[in-house]
């Protein structure tokens, strides 16, 4: 995760060697000044619990949505099948019934 070209360049001799050296020192100062800061433990624990609860709610919502979609798709499929079957039956009945004769 680390790879400071600035720090690598410090060993390379160049005209601006002292300049580079000063920048390397500045980088070192920054690294020390921006030292590790730990989050307060009660905050970490509290947020962790809240997040796990939120993740559970999100998972349950996804499951409910999926189940709803599945039931919806099944209902739609059944309805389409029924419509199709009715249409076929009507078609068959129409074919079987004799054509109306012209009267008079």
């Amino acid at each position: 995760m680390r790879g400071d070209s600035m720090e690598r360049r410090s060993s390379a001799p160049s005209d601006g060697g002292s300049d580079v050296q000063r920048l390397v020192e500045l980088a070192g100062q920054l690294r020390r000044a921006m030292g590790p800061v730990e989050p307060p433990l009660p905050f970490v624990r509290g947020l962790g619990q809240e997040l796990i609860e939120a993740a559970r709610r999100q998972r349950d919502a996804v499951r409910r949505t999926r189940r709803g979609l599945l039931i919806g798709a099944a209902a739609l499929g059944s309805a389409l099948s029924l419509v199709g079957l009715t249409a076929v039956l009507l078609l068959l009945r129409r074919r079987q019934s004799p054509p109306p004769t012209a009267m008079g």
Partner: protein
Amino acid sequence: MKQLSDAELVARAKADPEAFGALYERHVAQVYRYLYYRTGNVQDAEDLTARTFYRALQALPRYQDRGLPFIAWLYRIAHNIVANWLRDHSRRPTVALDAVATTAAPEKEPHAAAEESEEQERLLAAVRCLPQDRQELLTLKFVAGMSNAEIGAVLGKSEGAIKSLYHRTLLALRQQLIEE
């Protein structure tokens, strides 16, 4: 759960809340640190850390592994959140980074430690005067310990652009310190 890699945990976390909890525990300190140095105070760092993880939870089903560490994805979310926060509030961190003093080496002589702490405060004050993108770069490099390529991925810039920006940032910072 603790032995699993980030990629394995992410795959599990899409259906298992405990796996998301494990990812949170693994990365919360890093995200908090980054946001602490970006906001300058504990309250806002906590608030934005919570927002970052809630947003990560919502976005997790759409997460795709693109070869970068999972933490880079979290930093990207945190970066967007802090950018919005800075824009909405039109503010820069003004409160002293009081915890920084506690990070100075405790074994030093009190006088030397106080001097170093003062020096660090001066340096951090100079950092806070830099433009936002430069502050961001320094935070990602020194707080998150990211490489130029990883910083580029978070900020949406090339590795070369980050390298160049880093160089210019150090020069500007040094100039600023000299002028003070």
